[in-house]
C-alpha cells in the first residue's frame, strides 16, 4: 500500500489522475473478439453408460469485443453464466460453439504450443483468495510458477529478483518470499494472486469477482492497485462482478448478462445513466445505495420470482417471466442484441445495444 501511495504521490497530481481517467481509448482493432460463444453442460443419466437427457445452457450465444487498455465489466446475478464466460476465455472449459479471437486467431481451436503462447498473454485473477493459492507452496514458488512453466519468460538466475520485483509492484514486502499463503490476510493474498497473473507480462487479465471476498476497507486498496497496474502495464481487463457500483467505478464499458445471454452492453454512462433493458433497470434500482437521503426519492423495481433454470430457459426473451413489460411477442421472438430501432438515428446515450423488443430509457439510479 505504502509503495503505491508513494508512487502516486510522485506522478499523480489530481490533474494527472483526472486526465488518466478521461484519456480517450485508442479504438483500433479489438484485442479480443468473442463471437456467438456457447457453453452447454450436458445433463446425463446412468453411471457407466451415460446418456444425455438435456443440457444446462450456461452461456448461450455471447458476443463482445475488448479493446486495448480498456476495462470491460460484465455484471449479472449468480447463474447468469458470467463465471463460465471467464473460464471459456481462459480455455479452462471447452466451448460448445462459437469463437474467441485473440489478435485474429481463434483460441478455442488452438492447442499445444500455440495455446501456451496465448496463455502468456491472457491471465486470470480469481475470486477467492483463500482457495486460489496452493497452501503447500511458498509465495515465492507461487509467483515463480509461471516462469517454471514458461522458462523463456525469465532466465533461471533472474527469477528470484523478478519475483521480488513483482511483490514490490503489488505492494507487498519482497522479503515475504518464503512465507506461506495462510500467513497472509485476504487482501494480501489477492495481491499475491495479482502478482502471479502479472508475472508473464500479459496483455489481458480476466478478473472473476476479484474483490467480492474481501472486507470493504480492503476492497478499495485492491481496486486502486488494479487501476494503477492497468496504466503502468497497459493492460486490458475483463472485470466480472456482481457489485454494480464497483463495476461502474472500474469499467469503461459494461455488459449485463441474464441467463446465459447478454441483455445490454454499452459505455458505463450508457448503461448506468441511460439503461434501456428492463432487466438492467431492475438490477440498478435494486442496488442499495449507501445514502439514506436517497432512499425516499428512488424508484425501486422489485422483481417477482426467481431466475428460471438455465436447463429449461423460457422461450423468446429469457427475462419475460419476470418482466413487467412482457407481451406475446416476447415469448415468440428472441430479441437480438442491437441498437433498438427507435434510437438508431439519435445520438443520445440511449442508442446502445440492448436485447429488448420494447427498449425504452428509464433513469433509475439518480433521484429527483
Amino acid at each position, binding site marked *: *500500500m*505504502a509503495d503505491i*501511495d508513494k508512487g*502516486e504521490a510522485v506522478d499523480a497530481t*489530481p490533474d494527472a*489522475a*483526472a486526465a488518466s*481517467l478521461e484519456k480517450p481509448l485508442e479504438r483500433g482493432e479489438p484485442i479480443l473478439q468473442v463471437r456467438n460463444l456457447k457453453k452447454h453442460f450436458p445433463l446425463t443419466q446412468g453411471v457407466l453408460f451415460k446418456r444425455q437427457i438435456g443440457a444446462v445452457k450456461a452461456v448461450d450465444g455471447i458476443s463482445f469485443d475488448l479493446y486495448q487498455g480498456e476495462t470491460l465489466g460484465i455484471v449479472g*446475478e*449468480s447463474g447468469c453464466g458470467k463465471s463460465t464466460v471467464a473460464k471459456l476465455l481462459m480455455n479452462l472449459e471447452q466451448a460448445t460453439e462459437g469463437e474467441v479471437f485473440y489478435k485474429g486467431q481463434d483460441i478455442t481451436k488452438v492447442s499445444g504450443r500455440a495455446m501456451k503462447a496465448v496463455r502468456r498473454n491472457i491471465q486470470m485473477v480469481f475470486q477467492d483468495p483463500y482457495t486460489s493459492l496452493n497452501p503447500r507452496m511458498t509465495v515465492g514458488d507461487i509467483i515463480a510458477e509461471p516462469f517454471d512453466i514458461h522458462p523463456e519468460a525469465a532466465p533461471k538466475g533472474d527469477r528470484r529478483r523478478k519475483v521480488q520485483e513483482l511483490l514490490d509492484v503489488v505492494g507487498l514486502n519482497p522479503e515475504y518470499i518464503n512465507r506461506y499463503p495462510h500467513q497472509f*490476510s485476504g*487482501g*494480501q493474498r489477492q495481491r499475491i494472486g495479482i502478482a502471479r497473473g502479472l508475472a508473464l507480462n500479459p496483455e489481458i487479465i480476466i478478473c472473476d469477482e476479484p474483490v467480492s471476498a474481501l*472486507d*470493504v*476497507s*480492503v*476492497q*478499495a*486498496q485492491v*481496486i*486502486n492497485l488494479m*487501476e494503477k497496474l492497468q496504466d503502468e502495464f497497459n493492460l486490458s481487463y475483463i472485470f466480472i462482478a*456482481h457489485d*454494480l*457500483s*464497483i463495476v*461502474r*467505478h*472500474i469499467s469503461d464499458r459494461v455488459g449485463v448478462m441474464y441467463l446465459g445471454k447478454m441483455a445490454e452492453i454499452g459505455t*458505463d*454512462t450508457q448503461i*448506468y445513466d441511460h439503461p434501456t433493458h428492463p432487466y438492467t433497470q*431492475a*438490477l*440498478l434500482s*435494486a*442496488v*442499495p*445505495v*449507501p*445514502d*439514506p*437521503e436517497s*432512499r425516499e426519492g428512488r424508484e*425501486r423495481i*422489485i*422483481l*417477482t*420470482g*426467481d*431466475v428460471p433454470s438455465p436447463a429449461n430457459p423460457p422461450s423468446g426473451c429469457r427475462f419475460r417471466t419476470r418482466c413487467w413489460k412482457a407481451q406475446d411477442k416476447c415469448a415468440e421472438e428472441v430479441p437480438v442484441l442491437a441498437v433498438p430501432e427507435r434510437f438508431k438515428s439519435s445520438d443520445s446515450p440511449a442508442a446502445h445495444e440492448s436485447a429488448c423488443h420494447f427498449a425504452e430509457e428509464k433513469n433509475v*439510479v*439518480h433521484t429527483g
Partner: protein
Amino acid sequence: MTTTQQAPFVPTPRAEGPLLEVRDLHVEFHTRDGVIRAVNGVNYSVSAGETLAVLGESGSGKSVTAQAIMGILDMPPAKIPQGEILFQGQDMLKMSAEERRGLRGAKIAMIFQDALSSLNPVLTVGYQLGEMFRVHQGLGKKEAKAKAIELMDRVKIPAAAARVNDFPHQFSGGMRQRIMIAMALALEPDLIIADEPTTALDVTVQAQVMDLLAELQREYNMGLILITHDLGVVADVADKIAVMYAGRIVEQAPVHELYKRPAHPYTRGLLDSIPRLDQKGQELFAIQGLPPNLLKVPTGCAFNPRCPMAQDICRTDLPALVEVSEQDGGVLPGRRSACHFWKETIHG
C-alpha cells in the same frame, strides 16, 4: 475536555425501557495461540419496532455479540468474563439454561446468512416449520402443517400449500431465506437478530427479502438487530447504527446523521472507500493497512495504525465512547464516538 464527554455510556432512557440492552459485554476465545478478545465492552440497546444495524468487517465482533445474545456461543472456547444482556429488564446471562432455551425462538429469533446449511436437508420444509408449533405449542400434526402453510403465505412463498412438502434444496436461495424468516417469525418473537441475512443473495432477490423483513417488522412491531458489512443495506432499513471495530463500538448514530457527518475516522474511511452507483468518480479513497489481528490488537485506539489522523495520544490512550455535540455545544441525540479527535472529524 469536559467531564460530560468522558462520562461512561448510559443508555438513553425510554418510557417503556428498551427491549434488549447489552451492557459492557466482553467475550473471549481461548485458543492455543492465546486469548482472543473478540468483544471488548460493547453497549447497545434496541426498542420494540426499532432497527439497529451493527456494521463491521470480519473480526469486528459483530457476529460474536449476536451469538452471545442468542446464547449459541460454543463455551469453551468462548467465555463471557463480564457484562450483562438484559432482555425486557432481565439479565439473560444469569438465567438457567432452561430459561434461556425458553426465550430462544419464542421471544428472540435469529436469521442466519446461509439458509441452506441452517435448514435440515432431509426434512421437508413444512415439517421443519411445523416443528416450532409442535414443540412450543403442542399442536398436532395436522394443525402444525396448516400453520406452516399460513407462515409460508405470510413470507410470500407462491403456492405455499403445494410446496409445503418440498425439501430445502428444491427451493431457490431467496425462497430458502424466506423460509428462514418464516421460521424466525413462527412464534411471533419480540426481537429478531439477522446476521448478514442477504449477503448470499443476488441483488434483485436481496431487495425482495429486505423489503419483506422490514414489512414484517412493522407489522409485528418487533425489534430488529441487523448485522452486516454492507453500508448500502444499512442505509435502506436501519434507524440507528453501531459501527464496530476490533471488538468495540467506535461510533453510534441515527442512520441519517452517520452518513451525513461521520464522527469517527474509520466510519468516514468506509464511506469514502465505496464506489458510487450514480457517478463515475475519481480514484477511490482507501483505508490503508489491514484489520487488526485480534491476538495483538494495537495499544491505544485499535484503529491508530490505519488512521490518517492518528497522533501520539492515539497510540497510548484508549478513547472512550463519548457523546458527540455540535460545535456550539448543542446536543446531537444518540450520537457517540470513540475517537480522541471526534471534533475534528465531525466538524473539520
